[in-house]
């Protein structure tokens, strides 16, 4: 009997406390049938990586509105890879300028979702990535 579930970690790295977006996305993913682990705010990259490992998630979703993404996101990716989780899908949501998005994708972030992205778009992206991987 198989009972596969997609597990997603939703985390807010850095000091930004505006978690409305992270929380509504967490709920939307739950309602799409995913198991969503929410870490809360003020997470360091180390905390996020440790949670991703213990929870053995398929997806790590980061939400950043404070402008600290260029410092924090590459660090999360680097730590995930270093601990053997190269196959985890890393998504970023928030206010991310286009040129930064391009650079982050090169650093291993799989997708960047800006303000106004619908949850169904994110859900579809995860499903497609999981089916393909």
């Amino acid at each position, binding site marked *: *009997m*198989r*009972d*596969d*579930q997609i*597990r997603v970690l939703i985390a807010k790295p850095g000091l930004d406390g505006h978690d409305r977006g992270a929380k509504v996305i*967490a*709920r939307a*993913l*739950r*309602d*799409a*049938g*995913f*198991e*969503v*682990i*929410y*870490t*809360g705010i003020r*997470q*360091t990259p*180390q*905390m996020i990586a*440790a*949670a991703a*490992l*213990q*929870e*053995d998630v*398929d997806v790590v979703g980061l939400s950043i509105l404070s402008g600290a993404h260029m410092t924090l996101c590459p660090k999360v990716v680097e730590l995930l890879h270093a*601990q*053997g*989780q*190269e*196959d985890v899908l890393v998504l970023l949501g928030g206010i991310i300028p286009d040129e930064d998005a391009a650079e982050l994708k090169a650093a291993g972030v799989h997708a960047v979702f800006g303000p106004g992205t619908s949850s169904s778009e994110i859900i579809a992206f995860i499903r497609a990535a999981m089916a393909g991987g």
Partner: protein
Amino acid sequence: MPKSAPTQQLIDGLLEGDRLALARAISRVEDDAAEAARIVRGVFAQTGRAHLIGVTGSPGTGKSTLVSALAERYRAQELTVGVLAVDPTSPFSGGALLGDRVRMTGHSGDAGVFIRSMATRRGTGGLARASADAMLLLDAGGFDRVIVETVGAGQAEIEIASVADTVVVVEAPGLGDEVQAIKAGLLEIADIFAVNKADRKGAGRTVAALEMMLETGGAAAQAVLHHGQRMEMEAAASETDAEEGWPIPVLETVAVSGGGVDQLRDALERHWAWLEGSGARSAREGRRLGHMLQTLVQAEVLARMERTLLPGLRSDLVEGMMRRQIDPYSAAAEMVKKLSG
């Protein structure tokens, strides 16, 4: 290590203390019953060392915060801790929001604490089907203390008593007029009561109510415990005697500030020593393993029934019941007869 790593690699890894292997083994156990069998077979000999602690109680009592504070107190004694935090699966979407980690952020960066969130999926009684297996894996992974926290939906979550050596029932003042544990039918399974949020108004009353309940209803409560257990099997007979001599403590804690948590840890340690010294531990372990056996047998029997019986028999019998041509007992007997014959 890729997600598709061979099972044996996961088993070897987790026994050597590789945390990613442990994490991935737990996922396999959750996702796939056949894998669960293989993995548990591979690690079972290395289990039985950890003190298995169940923490249950109504919503709003502060279980997660208390578990986190408790883990911290264990770490102060250099004991390692595995935590399994169970949250409900949505019956509508099959998804789940697992938020207990929010209250356990203090342990990040400490390799001596491993926290795993788990959705109930199709499990019952405030636990997941895979909870007991995951506890075995944490045990085999070398953690000294393994704490499982139930959903805490306010319903009778007495199955916790079938997977843990020691059950802590968490209570808090101000959640209503009556003691929640009584309402939820948890009184009978407690080895330790923790009245959390004890700095709030009404804590004294809650403690007094519990103590009175234990004094007057002690014997009755014990009796209910044993009849309340679904799993009695052979271990149950000797157990009643062995259980005597543990006075159930009612402790006051304030998890957010750490108040009283040392005393809770000490009470857990005392209970663990008492289980060992009194022989109750082996009685409980027998009960626990018996329960596990029964659960697995039930699952296997049901699965075999689905596989081997004529696909139409079940619906035929149900239809017969609806027409009142056959009663439920006779229908069940007929199915079982087909299976054994």
